[in-house]
């Protein structure tokens, strides 16, 4: 299924929490180099969708493929799904780098240790090689001087940039951003967006959940508007933001400005 140009393919994804159906059948394909912005109101299921892709949440139904490899699931006997092969899930996760709203850097490790952790302890990269890569990445996000500092002593913007370096260190097949700037003070948003913008211009495959509409319009090549667990509308950014069709999207866009 799917040629090598397909980075992520999601087919008819459903997710329910108890009696609440949060995702009601979502299909989406990200080709390599795609920057897909996911927008939608609070509670529309954006985070849940992203977290189903790397199986932090287990979908109730549907399939996820990464680089043409379908993640094997089996029934859990209660109407849900569980991974059929944990190792496969771990292997795929290790190459789908996630950047969280609240950074989630490991607090007991320095910035550098955070960045080399997955390469060394998950992917098995030799330590000196991982350190060299990490230092280059930290230079790139402007944190080389902070490499031996613990995350708690950094500003939110610095922490998020360190988290992006951690994500890049695994040479991700695709990056998953869940509102990477929502927890930041307004004056720190810019420095993080500029790093993400650079990555987008490099044509790194990414799914980006964001409330920064101007930014989404600038960097994405496809925008998905989620409403109530369904894709209400999708298309190129200029159409979505410039000429929205559905009433809900029109309302959403006008409400955010």
């Amino acid at each position: 299924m799917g040629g090598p140009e397909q980075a992520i393919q999601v087919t008819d994804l459903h997710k329910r929490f108890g009696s609440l159906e949060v995702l009601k059948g979502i299909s989406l394909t990200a080709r390599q180099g795609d920057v897909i912005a996911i927008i939608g109101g609070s509670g529309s299921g954006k985070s849940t969708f992203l977290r189903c892709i790397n199986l932090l949440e287990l979908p109730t139904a549907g399939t996820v493929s990464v680089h043409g490899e379908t993640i094997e699931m089996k029934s859990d006997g209660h109407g849900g799904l569980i991974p059929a092969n944990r190792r496969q899930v771990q292997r795929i996760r290790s190459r789908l780098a996630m950047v969280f709203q609240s950074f989630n850097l490991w607090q007991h490790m320095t910035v550098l240790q955070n960045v080399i952790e997955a390469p060394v302890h998950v992917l098995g990269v030799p330590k000196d090689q991982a350190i060299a890569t990490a230092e280059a990445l930290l230079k790139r996000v402007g944190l080389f001087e902070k490499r031996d500092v613990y995350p708690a002593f950094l500003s939110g913007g610095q922490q998020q940039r360190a988290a992006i370096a951690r994500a890049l260190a695994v040479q991700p097949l695709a990056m998953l951003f869940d509102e990477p700037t929502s927890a930041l003070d307004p004056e720190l948003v810019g420095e993080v967006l500029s790093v993400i913008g650079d990555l987008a211009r490099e044509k790194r495959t990414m799914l980006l959940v964001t409330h920064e509409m101007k930014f989404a319009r600038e960097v994405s090549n496809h925008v998905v508007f989620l409403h109530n667990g369904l894709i209400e509308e999708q298309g190129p950014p200029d159409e979505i933001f410039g000429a929205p069709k559905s009433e809900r999207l029109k309302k959403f866009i006008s409400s955010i400005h």
Partner: protein
Amino acid sequence: MLVGFIQSLKLAFGGYGLGLLIGIGGACGKLYGGPILRDLMEIYTTLIRAIPELVLMLLLYYAGTDALSQLLALAGYGSVDINALTAGIFVIGVVQGAYATEVFRGAIKAVPAGQIEAGRAYGMSPMKVLTRVTLPAMLPYALPGLANLWMVATKDTALLAVIGFSELTLVTRQAAGSTKAYMLFFLAAGAIYLAWTLVSSLVIRFIEKRATRGLVRTA
């Protein structure tokens, strides 16, 4: 007396170490285990913490070692005499383990969920998450409780005097009894325990400083 002191040290280190191992296992059992394992752990920690330590010591020492040697005999090892030090470490370890389980359980729960989630998101196996993220991240939260337990372990060694184990307190009593210099010997023993505690708190402070490097001090 020095021999008694060394025996006490061995008891404390051995019992404490065993207690830590049981504690980590117990906490993981309580947090991640199935319902049966969780109930078993609950019974273990509740019982041990409810019963006075002296009673436990006597019970575990006599009944425990008896059961163990019978078990060994059944397994075909013949009658094995369990030496007093091993038995003492076992007794202290089982008692400490119950308290350590609670300390670790609380500390693990204090680790922000996002840290563990990040571990999973980057492809760590559950075991990797535990050893690379959960355990090191919970350490700062566990240390105050663990430091307390170490002090308790120290004092628990003296309780083993009642079962005739030649640790510091018993040796002191014997020496004092035979020389009639009660005051001298018990003051000396007290001084040794005090010195032990002082050295311990220095070491603990050092470890705490290292473990909390990543936390912003709010003091």
